[in-house]
């Protein structure tokens, strides 16, 4: 997720926070939210209300990747998009763990698998219309999915459909190959039925069907890369004015029919969204009630952290959810002596996990100490610890030394550690590892690289990694959705590694894991599948190619005057669909 800021602003923000704390919170007493309390919105709805009206004001410190359902890949965008787009399936708008449940949206019910999970059929609800009054048909859903596979026009979107659908050889989307027969991939037997045909069985296809890419697009109104300037709404709100990268607003869509939609309440009259807003100013405005939502949902800035945690009235209006993201370090077996498993194990044992957690900001803004690859939110996650760091979390020196002796390096060895230059937390992590590993003679040299090219040119580029002895790579990954496939497929499957660079997987090359992934993907029984993800997690950890750091958490401020506030585990932030303005 995108969050790039002026480093200097952080320093300034810290000063602002100090000054404001000194000012004393005359704006405090932020208790307008009824039964508020720290973490109160994690598992229940605060300020429940059915009252309609009002406008919700939203700010974004950055910009959207795209407002087009076929191209957007930001978590907050998927959360927000449900206001103007309806995909086949969606995550249930409910507090806490209940939000991980998939429920039908455009479809009448969840997908029906056949052919062992290779074919998935969805029946559309009747009576759903676009904002211009045109009825939605199954052909529009098929067209929307097909257009999203044109990665020359939509390079930002997820690439799951082109990977899994049985598209004909040489298909480049409906613009460039309009006459190509795509019935091997998607068919629409009638106006209400859409059928997906996959190359291989995929038991969790409903997760793909919840992607915004299945939100219908009428071919006659499609303007390709310009469609994001005016997306035709199927949800309760439609675009009124849209100035790309500046601001837009949503107003009620009078063609949306509540009778067709059991998931949305559509309480506010509209939404006003502003982009490129100073991140520290967003926090101030949230606290002072001038703003309802920081859309990115990644939490307050470092400057506001101590202010919020230190002021009981502010803290009572904040939530600290765990999100489906792991901050970790890749241990590259392509770099000697880390080609020896015992040398890798020495790193796992010698790491000071408490210091790693501190590097990420401690238990509130950083997260909980991790011992597995999958965070606890992912179904199937099993809590285990193959390399215990001792009661104080500072590492097991004896085990580390034993491992070093076993790998033929009893006095330690030297290697390099890469991190993103623009990320102070990653630099702190590299320094923390440098200090903790030095205790057993492992000498790390810090190498900073620009984040824009981090994976493409440097830490994710296998020849560069080898040539520059990047034994360790500070890394992080968030799930596309809360499921083993959504979390693991891009970071433990060796087949995603490209010699030209660009993959987040820099260290996991285990053929057995690839096979295990294929088996789990094909499994249609959810319970069995979840257990298989847990096994994969354990198998990768046995090879010691990933050093888990922290399961990420964020500190969110509840906007003043909002109703129906709760954290959705599925998105790791407040659910934007249920909110109302009091």
């Amino acid at each position, binding site marked *: 997720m995108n969050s790039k800021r002026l480093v200097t602003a952080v320093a300034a923000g810290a000063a602002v926070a100090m000054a404001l704390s000194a000012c004393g919170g005359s704006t405090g007493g932020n208790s307008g939210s009824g039964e508020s309390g720290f973490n109160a919105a994690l598992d229940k709805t605060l300020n429940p209300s059915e009252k309609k009206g009002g406008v919700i004001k939203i700010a974004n410190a950055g910009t959207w990747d795209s407002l087009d359902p076929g191209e957007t890949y930001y978590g907050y965008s998927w959360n927000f998009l449900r206001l103007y787009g309806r995909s086949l399936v969606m995550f249930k708008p409910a507090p806490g763990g209940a939000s991980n449940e998939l429920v039908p949206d455009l479809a009448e019910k969840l997908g029906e698998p056949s052919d062992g999970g290779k074919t998935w059929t969805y029946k559309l609800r009747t009576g759903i219309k676009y904002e211009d009054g045109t009825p939605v048909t199954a052909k529009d859903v098929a067209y929307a999915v097909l257009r999203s596979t044109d990665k020359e026009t939509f390079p*930002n979107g997820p690439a799951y459909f082109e990977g899994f659908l049985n598209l004909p050889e040489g298909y480049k989307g409906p613009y460039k190959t309009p006459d190509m027969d795509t019935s091997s991939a998607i068919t629409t037997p009638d106006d209400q039925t859409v059928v997906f045909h996959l190359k291989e069985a995929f038991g969790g296809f409903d997760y793909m069907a919840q992607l915004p890419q299945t939100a219908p697009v009428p071919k006659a109104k499609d303007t390709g890369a310009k469609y994001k300037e005016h997306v035709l709404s199927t949800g309760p709100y439609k675009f009124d004015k849209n100035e790309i990268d500046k601001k837009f607003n949503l107003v009620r869509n009078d063609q949306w029919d509540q009778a067709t939609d059991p998931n949305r309440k559509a309480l506010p009259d509209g939404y006003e969204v502003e982009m490129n807003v100073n991140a520290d100013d967003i926090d101030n405005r949230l606290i002072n009630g001038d703003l309802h939502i920081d859309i990115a949902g990644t939490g307050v800035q470092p400057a506001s952290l101590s202010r919020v945690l230190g002021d009981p009235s502010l803290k009572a209006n904040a939530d600290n959810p765990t999100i489906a993201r792991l901050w970790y370090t890749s241990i590259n077996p392509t770099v000697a002596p880390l080609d020896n498993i015992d040398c890798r194990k020495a790193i796992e044992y010698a790491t000071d996990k408490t210091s790693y957690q501190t590097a990420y900001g401690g238990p509130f803004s950083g997260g909980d100490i991790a011992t597995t690859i999958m965070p606890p939110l992912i179904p199937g996650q099993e809590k285990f610890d193959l390399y215990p760091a001792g009661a104080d979390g500072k590492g097991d020196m004896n085990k580390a030394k034993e491992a070093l002796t076993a790998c033929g390096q009893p006095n330690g060895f030297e290697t390099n550690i890469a991190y993103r230059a623009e990320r102070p937390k990653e630099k702190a992590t590299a320094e923390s590892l440098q200090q903790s590993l030095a205790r057993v003679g492992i000498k790390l040299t810090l190498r900073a690289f620009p984040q824009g090219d981090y994976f493409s040119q440097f830490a994710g580029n296998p020849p560069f990694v080898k040539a520059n002895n990047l034994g360790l790579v500070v890394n992080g990954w968030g799930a596309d959705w809360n499921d083993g496939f959504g979390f693991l497929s891009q970071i433990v499957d060796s087949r995603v590694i490209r010699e030209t660079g660009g993959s987040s997987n820099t260290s996991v090359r285990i053929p057995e894991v690839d096979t295990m992934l294929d088996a789990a993907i094909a499994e249609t029984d959810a319970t069995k599948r979840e257990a298989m993800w847990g096994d994969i997690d354990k198998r990768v950890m046995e090879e010691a190619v990933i050093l888990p750091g922290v399961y990420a958490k964020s500190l969110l401020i509840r906007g003043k005057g909002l109703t129906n506030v709760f954290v959705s585990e599925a998105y790791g932030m407040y659910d934007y669909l249920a909110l109302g303005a009091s």
Partner: protein
Amino acid sequence: MPATVITYIIRRLFAAVVLLFIVSMITFAIFFVIPKLGGGTPETLASRYVGRAATAETVRLTAERLGFYDPILVQYGHWLKGIFVGADYDYGPAVDHCPAPCLGYSFRTNQPVLPDLLDRLPVTLSLASGAAVLWLLAGISVGTLSALRKGSVLDRMSMGVALAGVSLPIFFTGLISLAFFSYQLGWTAPGGSYTPITENIGDWAYALLLPWITLAFQFSAQYARLTRAGMLETMNEDFIRTARAKGLVERRVVVKHGLRGALTPILTIFGLDIGLLLGGAVLTESAFSLKGLGQYAIDAIKNYDLPKVMGVTIMAAFFIVLANLVVDLLYAVVDPRVRTA
């Protein structure tokens, strides 16, 4: 206007065009050559414009769409051609034509750059011009008074405040003033407020008041110190003594003779400052979330959006050149010695 002055202006404008070409070439070269020296390939460049976990095919297609497989000179040629004859852009179902002068399409948003720049220009223009009026008024008057009452309490106090103004960065004063005046007291508009002057002049001024004051605070500090130094020097010149000996009233001596002489270096600095600000008051726009050229530049750089970077760089260079040309012409008005030379 004399023919020599017209020739001078034409010569300067021609030099400005040459300078803009050089600036564009350097920007282009920095964008492509430096990554190449670090081992970059068209694919690694293209991977900046794709979503996470993009496939190799997506990266290749993007490199192809953005023309990264062409030699750098050919790519520059395409960009240059757009300025003179326009450019075509394939957005999927059809092709869009960007008429000349076309500064290209954003790599990321697919929007043509020039309309974006022109859309944001009024914000920056409003910010810079309002602040300039404030800082010139405040800086010159405070500087003059300080010089005339050298060593007084007023002099020491105003120079102390000026020192603080120069030292405090805008992202600090901006956020502090927003937090205090907008959110605590509610006197000024919150961050991100802007109403075009054509819609409502009162709202326009209200929204920009705090950014103006914040920006002017820093600049007026410099100008106060510059004016004070200039005035102290000028007021000791022989012609001032002559003016006083002629029996001119002190106000006339100070304003017509003293201040006028001290203005020349201030005008030089003003030309550079206003030119730079018109190209984008980066920090002020970021602190106050104003959608001007400065914020556009930051956004472009953060996203490696070359056409946007090129556009905003050229516009900034254009304003610097223009402001300096105007200042050079104003020298003659301000300083009679330049006219006779």
